[in-house]
């Protein structure tokens, strides 16, 4: 095993991640305004910004889904119980004792099991939920003639808001966990440069050297 700086976040993934960060922050901010939690942006411009950002995010997700499927990177999110307990135990107890993170990143498995599970849940449940409720809400006028449309709209809108709270919760925990390791900068840097320190087996190292030299620095 050798520790090497390996590019594990290709350009598209970083673009996707940071665009998503920006769009989600815009959506949370304008969404809170539209919901009446603050009045920092006038309602009309807030609606425009929220809708535009949401549509942009949907387009981004379509590209991201395509990317995950075609590059096989979706495998990073396959749930596993291997090491899950250790990671959970680290966050709950060992971190206070100054222990090191138990998970060693592999180049074919860049997320720890808890992280992968969280992202999977986010992608399979929360994001589709906000997406679907948002689109159903946005297209209200196509189904307004349904009986109980008034009640249905209220339910859809409230689900949308509830999911938004859950996504905001994710953002907070996600950002906080960047501090749980060597340092905040150490955690953020790979998502900017694409490179992270990875344990490579000699075979992996040899393969990368021979076939994907650009991924090694």
């Amino acid at each position, binding site marked *: 095993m050798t520790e090497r700086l390996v590019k594990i976040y290709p350009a598209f993934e970083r673009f996707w991640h940071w665009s998503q960060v920006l769009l989600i922050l815009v959506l949370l901010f304008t969404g809170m*305004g*539209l*919901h*009446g*939690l603050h*009045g920092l942006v*006038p*309602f*009309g411009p807030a*609606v*425009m910004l929220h*809708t*535009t950002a949401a549509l942009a995010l949907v387009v981004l997700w379509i590209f991201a889904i395509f990317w995950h499927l075609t590059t096989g990177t979706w495998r990073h999110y396959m749930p596993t119980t291997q090491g899950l307990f250790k990671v959970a135990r680290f*966050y709950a107890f060992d*971190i*206070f*004792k*100054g222990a090191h993170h138990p998970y060693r990143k592999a180049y074919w498995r860049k997320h720890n099991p808890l992280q992968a599970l969280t992202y999977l849940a986010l992608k399979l449940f929360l994001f589709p939920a906000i997406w679907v409720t948002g689109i159903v809400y946005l297209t*209200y*006028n196509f189904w*307004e*003639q349904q009986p*109980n*449309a*008034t009640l249905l*709209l*209220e339910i859809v*809108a*409230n689900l949308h*808001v*509830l999911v*938004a*709270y*859950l996504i*905001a*919760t994710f953002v*907070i*925990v996600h950002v*906080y966990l960047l*501090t*749980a390791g060597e340092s905040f900068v150490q955690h953020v840097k790979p998502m900017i440069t694409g490179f992270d320190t990875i344990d490579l087996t000699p075979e992996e190292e040899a393969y990368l050297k021979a076939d994907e030299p650009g991924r090694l620095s």
Partner: protein
Amino acid sequence: MRRRRNWRGIAAAILFLAATPACAQAQNEAAMPGASGSTADHSAFEILKKPFASGPEVTEACLTCHTEAAKQVMSSIHWTWTYTHPTTGQQLGKSHVINAFCGNVASNEPRCTSCHAGYGWEKMADGPPKAQSAVDCLVCHDTSGTYSKLDNAAGNPPLTPVPAGAKTITGAPAKPVDLAMAAQSVGLPRRENCGQCHFYGGGGDNVKHGDLSSVLYNPDKSVDVHMSKDGANMVCSDCHVTNRHVWAGSRYNVTAHDMIGTGKPGERRDVATCESCHGTAPHESASLMGMKLNDHVDRVACQTCHIPEFARGGVATKTVWDWSTAGKLKDGKPYSEEEFVQSDGKHLHTYLSTKGNFEWGEDVVPFYAWFNGQVEYTTGDQTIDPTRVVEINRISGSPDDGKSRIWPFKRMEGRQAYDKQLNHLVYNHVYGPETDTAFWTNFDWSKSIKAAMDYVGEPYSGEFDFVDTHMYWPITHMVAPKEQALDCESCHAKDGRLANLAGFYMPGRDPGGPVDKIGLAILLAAIAGVIGHAVLRLVMRRGGHA
């Protein structure tokens, strides 16, 4: 959708083609004979070149050519003052209803019927005059601006000799009318014709409607984008289109949600709705904002956003009328107070011995309600609950019926007489300078009510009191230029204009519900967890170092 867009394109093309000659015509108007563009110059007709001794004589002359006109007018609500509601079956119209202003027409005829589109309706119960010559052609068709009606002569104009102190229906000093000149000037009705009656309903300028005042004779564009000379310079009948002297538009049976729009090219639609000209998707559909605004038209009437306030332009409307204080005298004589100062400096009555206390308002924010167009009146035969505010006209609608939209109203607050035993609203006899029962002459409620109830032949116990009332007037005139339309946050805010409307979800208005509580609890728990976790890490690490 595709088809609709095609129609819109075709309609726009036709409008353009139609508008082009109209503009050319306007430019050449000075050079063309006959200012009105009509094919007839009425000043050339021999039959109109003679001295007329009365209104009916003029009408007879009109009818020699316009043979069907009187019959048409006499079948319209302008003439009958009667309307049978197609849904509720209620007998409505001025000859039947009780309102929150002067109350009722019956027993006050020569004053109230001064605005009748005819001559000599002296008694409500007899119905309008039968003779075709009793139709008043001039009040609608005079374009000389000299024709008027006396305020107490059952619709007759002031003729030489005019009695001293006589006034017209607009409250102006009466001048003798030159009937021949008026007859020779006839043309299509202008704002001035309709306004003489409709701007002065309820006994004065803008008293009744709130959105119909003398300001509309020549409004600034900011007051009325349609009627302003700087705007479309439209007249009333451009929207209130006529078919055989019957006009589109009704306050008793409102088209609260027009889903047809402009109709097919060339199709005639006898409605006065905004949609009949502007279509059912009136905002710019190529923009996101326009699409979002078009999303609103199913639930929000055009008027709600586009008439931000009523009684604009400098003429106030009466907002409160308390009859219960009427009849107070000073030294045995009626008196008045003028405490309200209009924006033009004019003082308006806030108390009259004849009418009680008033309040006025300018630039009034409307009252908003779900409205499906149905209006039901509390007529004299209905039993009221005097412990509550009586709704003189109940407007119906709900967010769930699929038909209603949010509409703006002037909500008139009144305090009116009712029968304490029978719990009915009562009629009152106020006008009648010669009688010893008229309230405005004798200041005696019991005589006034008794006389009116006997007059209409309704039961009356003899005991009366006063009850608070509300009367609703749909606001639909004084449409502002689009730049002045309400901002989104006028309604989409916690304390916005629709804060009191319940039973439907509206973003921005109702934060703090159960979902917010759950969501906020989760969010706060996460924040607390994160902070606790961080603090614990810091403390433990420091402890470790120590």
